[in-house]
């Protein structure tokens, strides 16, 4: 019997100091099955993943998500025609709403995906996290939705400084005083619009869980980790695996209650027995390869699950293992960049 070689496209191959999850996802797939062809979907010809042939076999430049689904869909169809394409794993927040909305259309085009439903995706909006947290029996920091600086001033009188000023989907800043808060309010509103959320600052350690829900209330595996070092943007840089049973039980409960389908990351603050929900990301996080290295290869399990294969769903891993990120250099010829710029795809 000839084994079918899977061709899987994935985005988020910006392996920079604000790393996208794509390289971790691709590396996880390659580690488990070298016959898989990884196709990078990039929005920038200078994304490092476009030049990392050891993990991304071929890459294509896509139009930005703000150009709408049709533009992306046309590119995916072209890639399918040209290289073959079995499945797509979108990994960037900005494109996820489109992929989620048009997942049925993707399926009609013969491209598989494994994404949350629209209703599940909506749950992660920060304005709904209080209800999600209540259902899970954990806390959510006191949060006020504001639409003006005057509203924010009133909210800050209640939550007091230091506080967190954040966008409904993106960006969060700790603010110490009103001028600082006004600056951040304006920056976020200009970039991402309204509402702006004013939130109390909670103490504790930031602990995260990565997992995949099977869409029927079960998980394909879970791993918890603590951030030890973060980038200036608060992204996971170094971390350590942990066996926080309460947190893992909450992740399982979340999947069960919501019948979550697809990858997710729970970001929580933990202060003793008090657990605060901070964010739910409806995708793999950039540290997903850490879970793979611990024996819980979530991208591969997800791909196998979609293919209808029997998979290992265990979440047995060692606590006390560290993930250390580092920077490295790879050298390419400028003609590689030129090929990407003019042809919209890598030579691979």
């Amino acid at each position, binding site marked *: 019997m000839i084994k079918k070689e899977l061709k899987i496209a994935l985005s988020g191959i910006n392996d920079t100091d604000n790393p996208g999850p794509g390289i971790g996802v691709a590396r996880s797939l390659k580690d488990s099955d070298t016959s898989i062809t990884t196709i990078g979907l990039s929005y920038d010809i200078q994304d490092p993943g476009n030049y990392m042939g050891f993990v991304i076999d071929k890459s294509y430049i896509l139009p930005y998500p703000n150009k709408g689904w049709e533009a992306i869909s046309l590119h995916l169809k072209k890639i399918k025609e040209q290289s073959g394409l079995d499945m797509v794993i979108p990994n960037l927040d900005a494109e996820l709403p489109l992929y989620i909305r048009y997942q049925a259309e993707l399926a009609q085009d013969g491209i598989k995906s494994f994404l949350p439903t629209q209703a599940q995706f909506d749950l992660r909006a920060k304005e709904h996290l209080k209800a999600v947290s209540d259902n899970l029996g954990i806390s959510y920091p006191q949060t006020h939705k504001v639409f003006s600086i005057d509203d924010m001033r009133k909210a800050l009188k209640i939550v007091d400084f230091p506080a967190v000023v954040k966008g409904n989907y993106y960006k969060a800043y700790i603010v110490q005083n009103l001028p600082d808060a006004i600056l951040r309010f304006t920056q976020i509103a200009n970039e991402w619009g309204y509402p702006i959320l004013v939130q109390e600052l909670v103490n504790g*350690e930031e*602990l995260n869980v990565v997992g995949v829900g099977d869409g029927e209330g079960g998980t394909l595996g879970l791993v918890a*980790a*603590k951030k*030890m070092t973060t980038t200036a943007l608060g992204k996971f840089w170094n*971390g*350590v*695996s*942990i*066996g*926080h*049973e309460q947190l893992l039980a909450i992740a399982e409960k979340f999947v069960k209650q919501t019948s979550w389908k697809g990858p997710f990351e729970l970001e929580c603050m*933990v202060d*003793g027995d008090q657990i605060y929900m901070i964010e739910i990301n409806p995708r793999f996080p950039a540290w997903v390869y850490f879970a793979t290295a611990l024996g819980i290869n979530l991208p591969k399990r997800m791909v196998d699950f979609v293919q209808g294969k029997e998979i290992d769903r265990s979440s047995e891993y060692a*606590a*006390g293992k560290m993930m250390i990120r580092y920077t490295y250099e790879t050298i390419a010829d400028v003609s590689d960049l030129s090929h990407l710029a003019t042809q919209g795809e890598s030579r691979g």
Partner: protein
Amino acid sequence: MSRVEMMAINDTGFAFDPMSGESFTLNETAVEIIKALKVGKSEREIAEALSELYDVEALDSLTDVLDFIKQLKSFRLVD
């Protein structure tokens, strides 16, 4: 099981709490106390053992043990 019972400690005094991911550096006496707590010894038994090991008064030793356990409690490592 308390967190101190799950704690991994090596001979150089590095301790790792697998639940929270926190790590601690312990001196020699602290290592002895934690190892004893992990096997369920009482505060008095630990103090007696330390008193013999370091040749100090039992009462001083007990005070030190209780102080240290108070610190562990502040880190929520013991109940």
